[in-house]
């Protein structure tokens, strides 16, 4: 249903949309969006959601090409303290609990023969029908429209404005 509504609408609109070159690049590789979606699912398993999501955002910011140089500069200026910090980080890493994903990676379950039941093979796998209901990220009702910048859903002009003001992840997503 939703898919049917949204695609003809997009084709009909004759308005020319100015898109910045960087946006084009961001749109071109859909990996970014997939990564943002994955990060969001990961965030659902966090214990202290508030703090950890902020960290994720910071990581994303530093990977932007504009800020890369600033970031490099910062890193060099910290060079004097580097040794002690690294040592500390290593120490912390040894002490700190590892995530389940790391343990899973270490166990390398992919190498097991295909008839052995394992954590990876117990996952249900993709649904039989690919239809996905879309809910407005602002108000929660059925959403017909997709944000061209970040791919999130909204249902009306009002929600679109709220989305653009607050949530649109232009470059991150």
């Amino acid at each position, binding site marked *: 249903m939703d898919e049917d509504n949204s695609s003809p609408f997009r084709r009909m609109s004759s308005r020319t949309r100015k898109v910045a070159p960087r946006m084009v690049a961001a749109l071109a590789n859909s990996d970014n969006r997939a990564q943002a979606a994955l990060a969001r699912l990961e965030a659902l398993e966090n214990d202290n959601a508030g703090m950890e999501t902020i960290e994720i955002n910071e990581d994303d910011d530093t990977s932007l090409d504009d800020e890369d140089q600033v970031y490099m500069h910062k890193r060099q200026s910290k060079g004097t303290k580097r040794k002690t910090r690294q040592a500390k980080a290593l120490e912390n890493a040894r002490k700190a609990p590892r995530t389940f994903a790391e343990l899973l990676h270490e166990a390398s379950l992919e190498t097991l023969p295909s008839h052995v039941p394992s954590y990876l093979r117990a996952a249900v796998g993709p649904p039989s029908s690919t239809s996905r209901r879309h809910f407005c990220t602002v108000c*929660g009702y059925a959403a017909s429209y997709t944000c061209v910048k970040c791919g999130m859903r909204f249902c009306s002009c009002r929600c679109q404005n709220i989305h653009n003001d607050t949530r649109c992840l232009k470059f991150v997503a």
Partner: protein
Amino acid sequence: MSNVVVVLDNGGGLIKAGLGGERDPSTVLPNCLLRPLSSKKWLHPSPTIAASSEDPLDLTSAAVRRPLDRGYLINPDLQRDIWAHLFNSLLHISPSQSSLLLTEPLFALPSIQRATDELVFEDFNFSALYVADSPSLAHIYETSRRHVVSRGAAQCSLVVDCGFSFTHAAPVFQNFTLNYAVKRIDLGGKALTNYLKELVSYRSVNVMDETFLMDDVKEKLCFVSLDVARDLGVARKPGKKNLLRCTYVLPDGVTHTKGFVKDPDQAQRYLSLTDGALTSNLGAKVDMDHIEVTEKPEDRKRIDLTKNEFDLTNERFLVPEMLFHPADLGMNQAGLAECIVRAVNSCHPHLHPILYESIILTGGSTLFPRFAERLEKELRPLVPDDYQVKITTQENPILGVWRGGSLLASSPDFEAMCVTKSEYEELGSARCRRRFFH
């Protein structure tokens, strides 16, 4: 020898612990350490049922550390702290003179199994250990209750364990989980709470740090919708016609330290929405009259003055909805009904009719109202016509697994099934584990 058996259902959300042979666990406590705003140290949470909360911690904006991630033990040091507190101050037992029945999630990685064994034998010196998985324990408990009725069917069942960290559909045959047929959805109570947090924080009040508060909101207000499209329509209606709107009052830290549902009657109004359109109209009318009487203009003014509450409408059923359609969240996983069908289909065809007839729901997330009804509604079209679908709900899904463990621990063969400390010392972790058929 050791005759005390400690039964420990080590869940990601709650630890259920007690002595074997008893009906209910003596302690149920959150499996985490807390740091409330008022404290600089990590504190042990108080048990949820045993003590009648002599000094309830103020859990507002408390930070949480959990030893389990996605259901699996990742931080043995933290788990040791929590268990030490549990054994010494809550259960009052000495591990070296007792054996332990411990639940472990299915498909625990070898490294995690080793860490668990080290914890049990080397840190706590238990004299013997038996590791069970929760589906088989839930099955044992259910069969013990209905053994009179039908003995043939009681030998196998399909356990749907929808807990804190994930959801499993596991066929159990003669008290053993058929691990080649188990299917898992990576969604549980924790993800649902976090999803609700995200929705509320974006739409009304920022509650991203309030894990315990939002757990309470989820438990009290969320329900499973039987017809999502219709309920979305209802949730959209303005004012009194909206049977789903419900107000939750946040704690103010002065008069009440716990949040509560403003009007419990209002929270129950969704029950009047039944399948038939006619009856729902009738119900709506009755309810509207009822509300007009109770709602006074003064109440509304008070809402505007103090902004310490928030309304929930469609969030109430869209949150549990994710268990049935994880794809809506962007997860590439099938919903619960399909998960059950796939689990059954991986078993021998002779078992199919019996498995569909004995579906057992266990785990805290099955406590959402109407969970079983919705599941049956989704499952029925997927199951062949000549098979019956029968879904059994446990009277207390949180404790069901523990009760099964308690029964197993009091059975006469239990001691023979255990791995003793001397065996562990001689053979090591991996060899001992073979006894549990992992």
